[in-house]
């Protein structure tokens, strides 16, 4: 989250200020990519580029605060992810092998970052393995950092339903992890 300065950055980005846009991008893009890796793993990077293109185009029309901005970006992301899934169903794409996934650490990354990226990748894969409706709300709650009401608006469900889905997702995760360590 950017915090108190958000409004200034947003206004500057609307005026075409690249620095301000970079601030917004840096703040949100990591979470956006992680969310997309849960809901559209095969096309996360491409979809993120589409999302930012749409965000750039809609920046002038957007009105709201930082929470609203996050909600908007993830709403766009969800729609683009659904489009990407439809396209993939029509025309299967060849999947990239895991070691060529774009979050592979850059060459100058310290080893710690590699471990961190690996843990993140595994965590995202675990969430992605949940039933799609659970995976989606867990990803939006945990990765996008949105509350149940915001998630409800994005996925078109009531906050109560979002909570139920998320809780089921957590239970399932716990079961899965227990089975894995128990074996």
């Amino acid at each position, binding site marked *: *989250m*950017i*915090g108190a*300065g958000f409004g*200034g*950055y947003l206004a*500057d*980005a609307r*005026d*075409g*200020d*690249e*620095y*301000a*846009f*970079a*601030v917004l*991008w*840096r*703040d949100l*893009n*990591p*979470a956006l990519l*992680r969310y997309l890796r849960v809901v559209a793993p095969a096309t996360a*990077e*491409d979809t993120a*580029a*589409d999302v*930012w*293109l749409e965000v*750039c185009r809609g920046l002038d029309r957007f009105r709201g605060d930082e929470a609203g901005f996050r909600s908007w970006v993830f709403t766009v992301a969800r729609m683009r992810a659904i489009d990407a899934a439809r396209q993939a169903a029509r025309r299967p*794409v060849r999947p990239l092998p895991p070691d*060529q996934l*774009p*979050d*592979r*650490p*850059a060459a*100058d990354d310290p080893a710690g*970052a590699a471990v*961190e*990226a690996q*843990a*993140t990748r*595994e*965590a*995202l894969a*675990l*969430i992605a393995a949940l039933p799609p409706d659970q995976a989606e709300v867990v*990803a939006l*709650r*945990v*990765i996008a950092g949105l*509350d149940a009401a915001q998630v409800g608006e994005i996925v078109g469900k009531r906050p109560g339903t979002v909570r139920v889905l*998320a809780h089921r997702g*957590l239970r399932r*995760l*716990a079961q899965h*992890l*227990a089975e894995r360590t128990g074996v």
Partner: protein
Amino acid sequence: MAERILDGTVHEDDVPPGYRDVVRVLASAAASPSLVPPVEAAALATFRSVHRPVDAPRRRSVLSKLLGAKAVAAAVLGTAAVGTAAAAATGTLPDAAQAKAHHIVAAVPDAKPDGHGAAAVTSGTRSGTGASDHPALAGVAGLCQAYGSGNGAENGNRLDATAFGRLAAAAGGAGKIAAYCRTVEASASHPAGSTAGDGKDLPGACRSWQAADKDGRAPAAAVLARLTTAAGGADAIQPYCAAVLNEDNGPSADRPSAAPSASPRGNAPTAPPGEGNDQGDSPSHPAPPTPRG
């Protein structure tokens, strides 16, 4: 309890045993893996291609054409082309555009010498610790300069422990030094900053560009943008500046540079693009990437 786990506000020791691994997994999912900087170049190119400044010339520069079309394509096709998006973007952009993209990315985290971006920083998140709160601004500015000069390799390279400590104390933490220094430098250059964007001090901008070019540094983003517009393209800057400075040779040599961007402070060395890959460490703190110490 489940809501607090989802919010990430509960420690793994405080949840039922069966949920400890869940808390760990969710924490990992919420943590940022590092990102490769050329992806940012592509994102900025996308932004530039669809979001021209209101007061910018309608004619698109050669630079924005190159970066716009090619980098959007690179961003979209990036992963499909095999390997990292970084490799794709690097391979897809023409050499000149790629070089400029690196310049731009390197310059972006820098203070905006025209005071525009800096104003947002000052009026926004940094207002509480703004430079004006500190009477010893001049001393701090000097420290910041010293700090910036060590930026290329390791932050604070040339600062001794005492000076670094003072700077960290003024900034409110070692991790906040870079952002703090941007604010200080922006404040220091603000009085002249209001006229920097009107393009009148093209000789100053040219000198700044040449100095940066000579040292292999990235010129400040505003300088690059202004000169690209004035010269009619990024590739035309060099001959354009040669002509401008030739005309402007006499009186301006003694004149204090009107553009803050022409001062050494205005385009203090920024981290090379290769080091800008640790964003996400502190999402609430939009400082430029600083190498891990």
